[in-house]
């Protein structure tokens, strides 16, 4: 079974920020997630590199304000999130 990049990202975000799956949305913003604090920025950066092989620069990491920003950064590196 091939897991899509959308599914991988969803699992990663749920696990990193310890979300209930029902809380997940692809338009989640950082300020809506209690655990998306400065350490959460570090964790999600590690998780993205581990899962998608892309290492955020420090500027990219601190500039991320929501899940759509992560998708955009990865899409710009050729990682597709099409359904």
């Amino acid at each position: 079974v091939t897991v899509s990049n959308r599914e991988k990202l969803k699992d990663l975000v749920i696990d990193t920020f310890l979300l209930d799956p029902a809380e997940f949305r692809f338009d989640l913003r950082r300020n809506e997630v209690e655990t998306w604090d400065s350490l959460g920025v570090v964790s999600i950066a590690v998780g993205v590199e581990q899962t998608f092989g892309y290492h955020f620069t420090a500027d990219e990491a601190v500039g991320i304000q929501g899940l759509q920003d992560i998708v955009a950064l990865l899409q710009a590196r050729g990682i597709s999130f099409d359904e």
Partner: protein
Amino acid sequence: MNRPEVWTYPQLLRQDLGRAVVWATASAREPAASLPWPLATALDPLPPGTETLVAIGGGSLIDEAKAFRAQRAPSVRLVAVPSRWGSGAEASPVTVLDRAGRKEIHLDPSWLPDVRVLWPELASRLPPELARDGCADALAHGVEGFLSPLAQEPLRQEIAPLIERMIATPPADAAWFELSASACAAQARSSVGVVHGIAHTIEGELRRSQPRFGHARLCAAFLWPVLRFDRTSFAKVDDLLRRHGLDPDALERAARRLFPPADYSTALPVLQARWRDVLRDPCTRTNSALVRPASVEFFSAFLAAGVAP
């Protein structure tokens, strides 16, 4: 960051410390009695007019002395004499205080001791298990500080030779005093990882039923499993080690030599019960590989899996 001045034991004896008192852990009171300053029975209150506090003990005692001096007696000079290696508290701006079984972590370079003293003879009094656990604590500081996602390249270049020396140094060697202090001071410039996240989370609960479990013993129990977890989760871990001249398999063998399987088995049920808290620990969240809710299964299966490198 100001680093403490380093004295040898003979240098300590030659110093004019003014009105000094010695505060020592129980196991260090006998050698402490050989010093030319009176032993204090308690830290608070210090005798009036005290100018220097000489704290002799493990990381917990030295951290309590750092906090006391910073908060209650800022004009008193603090001389820290580690009686065992591992925590590196004598050289670290990080201070870990046990408050009713919960760990309070303070990061403040101004809390550092003014002086740390190398007294290698104290190592001869260390039981082998304590020496081993201290080595694991020091190696965990080095490895987690090196692999931390917050570590910059110059820091990794500084820590890599330390790790190499730790791999090659036997557990009973007094050289661990200096290795431990250097590793702890270095990791304070990045972070530690899930070895410390586990230790900080479960230490208090374990100690209530198993008083022999301290921080260093938990580092010994979890350093090898965590290193295996990190290596199997994220290929970057081996890449980083190799890029800095370190052999990941040799490092894992060193961690395995320090591993106490019976302690791991004892600690595992507490780890499983407190896993959610481990995930929320700040140290866990700066681990080199992402630690997920399902990662507890790796640790549950670790001993049975036959995962020797």
